[in-house]
């Protein structure tokens, strides 16, 4: 038993777009390190906007994508490894299970939905025979509030999106995994039904002692369900820690911006403010990626990549501000003049 159920060590993923000669590089995941403790089942939310690399990160944990560098460990066992220590094949599928964004895509339109559930029970060797498999399938369906008799023999198009997503959740529970990776599981579902699925995660966490990695762009559901949150921006995890602290007292300016942009029903927005929402095109390897949009930007932010700062015991932020650090002091006299001129 390892200390961490999930551990990412300096994981990066670089995609090559186009041919070998003319291709360009896209850094989808940039040196991400995270860990989720194994002591208790917990929910880790990865929050980010489109293109932040959160889905790529989920796909790496699901072995659907090979990391370009870095290591992923489940319960201390490395993934993507052929050797003895690695977690692979059936053992891996028993430990980690996915829930995908669009439930209608997650099941073939030409295969009965219950076949996937029975297959999971039999092929992952959870059940010894069809009778046992039936019992297991009936049980997991019941725990998501569905009845086997209503699911059996039907195709995906005979269910509503909400129902089908519940079946998706039920399927992922069959091998009693330690970790379920859910990639935007409610974004395709009507707002009024979302909370039903999200509540399911909270219930299943207790009932099945399963941890979740919940990938989402929605800060409010992330706050509602999660124990830990990682905020992603352009491939980097810019802030990570217990969700309560991150979302009520954020350390990274980007988290602050995100929070400020959620259309909350608590207070109305200030009108007539300029927002740094227009994406900045250039990717500068030698600077903080958020510098161009950051309202606290200092000269140093445009010059070097900030370190991952330990804000408190279990909180980190990829920023100069949280650390006790005076950027002015680190500048040459000319730079400090420039930065002063830039601000005025």
């Amino acid at each position, binding site marked *: 038993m390892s200390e961490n159920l999930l551990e990412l060590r300096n994981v990066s993923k670089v995609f090559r777009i186009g041919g070998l000669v003319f291709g360009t590089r896209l850094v989808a995941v940039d040196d991400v390190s995270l860990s989720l403790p194994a002591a208790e089942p917990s929910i880790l939310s990865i929050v980010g906007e489109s293109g932040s690399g959160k889905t790529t990160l989920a796909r790496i944990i699901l072995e659907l994508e090979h990391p370009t560098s870095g290591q992923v460990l489940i319960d201390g066992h490395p993934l993507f490894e052929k050797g003895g220590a690695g977690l692979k094949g059936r053992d891996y599928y028993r430990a980690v299970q996915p829930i995908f964004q669009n439930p209608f895509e997650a099941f073939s339109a030409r295969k009965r939905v219950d076949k996937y559930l029975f297959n999971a029970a039999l092929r992952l060797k959870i059940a010894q025979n069809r009778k046992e498999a039936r019992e297991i399938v009936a049980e997991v369906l019941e725990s998501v509030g569905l009845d086997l008799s209503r699911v059996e023999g039907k195709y995906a198009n005979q269910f509503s999106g909400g129902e089908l997503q519940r079946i998706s959740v039920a399927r992922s529970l069959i091998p009693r995994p330690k970790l379920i990776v859910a990639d935007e599981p409610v974004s395709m579902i009507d707002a009024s039904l979302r909370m039903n699925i999200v509540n399911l995660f909270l219930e299943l966490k207790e009932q099945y002692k399963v941890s979740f990695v919940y990938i989402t762009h929605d800060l*409010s559901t992330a706050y509602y369900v999660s124990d830990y949150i990682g905020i992603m921006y352009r491939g980097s995890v810019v802030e990570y820690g217990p969700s309560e602290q991150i979302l009520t007292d954020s350390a990274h300016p980007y988290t602050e911006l995100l929070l400020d942009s959620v259309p909350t029903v608590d207070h109305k927005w200030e009108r007539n403010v300029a927002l740094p*929402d227009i994406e900045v095109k250039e990717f500068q390897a030698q600077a903080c990626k958020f510098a161009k949009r950051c309202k606290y930007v200092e000269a140093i932010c445009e010059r070097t990549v900030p370190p991952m700062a330990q804000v408190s015991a279990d909180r980190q932020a990829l920023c100069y501000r949280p650390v006790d650090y005076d950027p002015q002091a680190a500048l040459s006299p000319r730079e400090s003049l420039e930065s002063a001129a830039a601000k005025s």
Partner: protein
Amino acid sequence: MLRLRELKCHYHTPRGVVQAVDGVSISIQPNEVLGIAGESGCGKSTLLKVLYDYLQPPLRIVSGSYEADFPDGDGKVKTIGPGEIREHWWEFISYIPQGSMSVLNPVIRIENQFFDAVPKRHPLKAKGKEAIRERVAAYLKELELPIEVLKSYPHQLSGGMKQRVLVALGTFLHPQIVLADEPTTALDVVVQKGILLMLIELQQQMENTLVVVSHDMGVHYQISDRLAIMYAGKLVEYGPTDAIFNNPLHPYTQMLIQSLPRVGDRSQRVGISGRPPNLIDPPAGCRFAARCPKAMEHCAHQEPELIQMGPDHFVSCHLYGEVAS
């Protein structure tokens, strides 16, 4: 500005008649932001199509009336209805679609996408394409959009930028009524906020009417003055946005608001279980009865009336019927 009385609009499909808008009465005021909220398939987009006077088979008005106050330029106000409203598209009434859908022609530069939205009798049209291009350039500059956008093709723009272009297109001729259909759905929150603020700012400048359809209650809270809640083709509640959020009357509205998770509040939230009824054969009585925790016996067979519960605050629910009578 716009008045709907007992308006029923149905789709006549081979599978049956879809009663998408079923007896909606509301009047939309000048210089206000009206939000229309509801689940997908509740008829809110159809209602918007009808407001825009885009009635194509199989959609048609079955009964009820719809009229608009049209200032004819001489200081007089003329009442016009379906079939006439479309004569004044873009100058009087405009439409902003959801930009994440591919509503921009992929092979035409942005500056040229405005041509078709300038009506034939508009003086600008007579001046030719070059004049329109100049005006577009000036307008985009006014909206602080980057100048490169003009010569770009849609695939070169981000989702947020495409939506800004669509907002610019919808407000280009300063119409009195702007209809926006899910203008920020599928956009990131930061971008969404920028676009919503842009919409509101333009509405305040032009002092016109903005009707926004969205399924997101948070969006409505932030931008709308009045809010209308639709369920299964019916208007179940409408009133000032603040009144609705402070004192939701209809159980459906209450549940919609209650189900919203909030940052900083971990109290238990529940979704609305079940699904909306089929609009081909909707149930008798209140259409929400089957999902309603407060449903009473007569809800299932008696249709509730729309009753006034406060200043400009209306609800259609049996819970309040007895109070009123």
